[in-house]
């Protein structure tokens, strides 16, 4: 039996057991149909997927967990002093914090209570993806957050805790909506609880209404031999602004897509990403920015570091539709290779159908500056430390975009620890 047939068969078997009402069941069937139509989990020959090695997901036949996922509440440390929502295998742990103008529910509960948002929740985004469609078919759990008109959410930390065993695949699906004029700052973290938790596939759809502002920080953590894939799809309406800072480091197999639809005049999106991969680590960071209305702005700043046997990829697509005149879109990706065995891939794509636009893209690849390294060593700084300082400086444009000091120093510490570990691994 092929993997696709297995999926179909298993899907039929488990469909009655999956939660959600009629709407959800229909959406699931549609999701599975499209997943199969698109050819299932993509292989390396699919152009958009060539840098994501998903063979293990295909070969190991990861499906819905057959035994209950870890139910004991694990230990975890919040990073910030913001209100906290912890989600264990898709379910909110305890009760969500009560915040003025902010509604936080489990996705399934929200679907029953407020069915009008189902379309947003089910949305395939701008470009259909087999992993996103599979997520729709099999999603269990996730969050629904709505921030009321003009409400201000100064900070919210959301921790997605993922347990289970290596045969698990867990599909989480979230929706976060900001009504007109709302402002929010949100930290997204994923933490895998067990050494070999299998595959987590998380889809989050965001909707920013007129004049809303969302600042999102994504921190992904993953244990060895597990897979983490996901997509953020963000709709940005008139004069609304979205910023995302993400750190992907120490991830064995990671593909993360950020899709933004600038669907209103004057909408603004800024994406910052730091990607680091060392031995046995691979990161594929994918962005798709659609300018569908005039006078919107986007800026992407990506810094990637490939250490000993590490592999990074950045695939950045900017689409400027025909009527999106006066678009300003910039994309910049700099790459640093620390060891000759490291690999970086950069694929900028600009599809511009309007004629009055300012669009730019730039990509560079380089090594550690040996002259600077010697200069630092001559001043007494040991080589490894000097290298770490240079890497940190290289990532400065991303890290310094974080206004929150706690998050900034957390990112800095994580990068430093990664550098240290990455050098130790090389020596082994």
């Amino acid at each position, binding site marked *: 039996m092929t993997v696709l047939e297995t999926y179909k068969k298993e899907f039929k078997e488990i469909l009655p057991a999956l939660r959600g009402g009629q709407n959800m069941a229909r959406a699931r069937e549609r999701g599975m149909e499209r997943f199969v139509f698109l050819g299932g989990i993509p292989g390396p020959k699919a152009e958009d997927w060539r840098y994501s090695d998903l063979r293990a997901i295909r070969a190991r036949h990861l499906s819905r967990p057959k035994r209950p996922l870890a139910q004991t509440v694990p230990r975890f440390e919040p990073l910030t002093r913001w209100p906290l929502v912890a989600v264990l295998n898709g379910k909110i742990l305890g009760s969500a914090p009560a915040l003025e103008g902010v509604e936080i529910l489990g996705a399934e509960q929200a679907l029953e209570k407020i069915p009008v948002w189902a379309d947003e929740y089910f949305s395939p985004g701008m470009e259909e993806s087999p992993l996103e469609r599979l997520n729709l078919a099999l999603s269990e759990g996730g969050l629904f957050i709505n921030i009321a008109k003009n409400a201000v959410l100064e900070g919210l930390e959301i921790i997605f805790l993922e347990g289970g065993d290596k045969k698990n695949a867990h599909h989480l699906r979230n929706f976060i909506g900001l009504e007109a004029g709302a402002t929010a700052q949100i930290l997204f973290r994923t933490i895998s609880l067990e050494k070999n938790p299998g595959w987590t596939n998380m889809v989050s759809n965001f909707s920013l209404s007129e004049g809303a502002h969302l600042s999102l920080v994504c921190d992904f953590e993953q244990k060895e031999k597990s897979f983490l894939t996901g997509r953020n799809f963000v709709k940005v309406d008139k004069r609304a602004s979205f910023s995302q800072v993400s750190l992907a480091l120490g991830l064995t197999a990671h593909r993360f897509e950020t899709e933004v639809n600038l669907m209103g005049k004057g909408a603004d999106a800024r994406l910052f990403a730091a990607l680091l991969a060392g031995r046995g680590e691979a990161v594929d960071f994918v962005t798709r920015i659609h300018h569908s209305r005039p006078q919107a702005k986007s800026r992407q700043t990506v810094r990637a570091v490939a250490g000993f046997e590490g592999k990074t990829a950045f695939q950045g697509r900017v689409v400027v539709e025909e009527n999106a005149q006066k678009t300003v879109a910039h994309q910049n990706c700099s790459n640093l290779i620390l060891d000759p065995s490291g690999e970086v891939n950069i694929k900028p794509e600009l599809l511009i159908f309007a004629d009055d636009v300012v669009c730019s893209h730039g990509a560079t690849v380089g090594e550690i500056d040996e002259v600077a390294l010697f*200069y630092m060593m*001559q*001043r*007494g700084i040991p*080589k490894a430390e000097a290298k770490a300082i*240079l890497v940190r400086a290289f990532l400065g444009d991303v890290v310094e975009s974080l206004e929150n000091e706690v998050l900034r120093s957390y990112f800095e510490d994580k990068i430093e620890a990664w550098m240290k570990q990455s050098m130790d691994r090389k020596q082994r």
Partner: protein
Amino acid sequence: MKPILSIDNLKVRVGGQEILKGLNLKIMPGEVHAIMGPNGSGKSTLANALAGKPGYEVTGGTVLYKGINLLDLDAHARAGEGLFLGFQYPVEIPGVSNLNFLRTALNAQRLYRGEEEMDASTFLKKIKEKAKLLLMDFEMQKRAVNVGFSGGEKKRNEMLQMLMIEPTLAVLDETDSGLDIDALKIVAEGINTIRLPDRGLLLITHYQRLLNYVEPDFVHILQDGKIVRTGDKELAKELEEKGYAAVA
């Protein structure tokens, strides 16, 4: 008394070519030596080889620094032992502030020597004092290392680092180039403050100008990878008047 630096028959290759061809030099505590020489004679090669720059291959000879074999040490360890190189072309490091860089360097050296770290407030107080001495704007220290600095500012920044680090032996590679006459005087004053009985100084220069303000005990002429003549400060004046061809 043990010499600070004792170089015996040093031979160095760079890019497959022999540049230093048997150089001898001894620096005793408290002494200031100047090395002068035409372009390509090996002045900078000597400085870089002493500091341990990659690509400078020592093919013969010995270098004893305070009695230890300098050539056995990594570049950062040489610095930790008190060897400072003032760069001819100070390096720009985008994204790393001067303050951060210098404090990290200072404390790395202290850690190497098993000393306690310098705390932030002592460091700030000291650097402000030294910047004032060199007539430097302290605010510049908050910017990235040498980025956007003029040639003269970079050289002064080297001196600021030197005054903070307080090396046992400072090798200054053409610190005077790119400085106007006022800046030269200020830099010379700075250099003179580290002229102490237990320290050594090696000035590498093209011109006699700097030596008017930092008076050397010895002047050496380097030609074709060897020291061909040694004298006192009068030798530098003679060179200035007659040129290398006539003197060496």
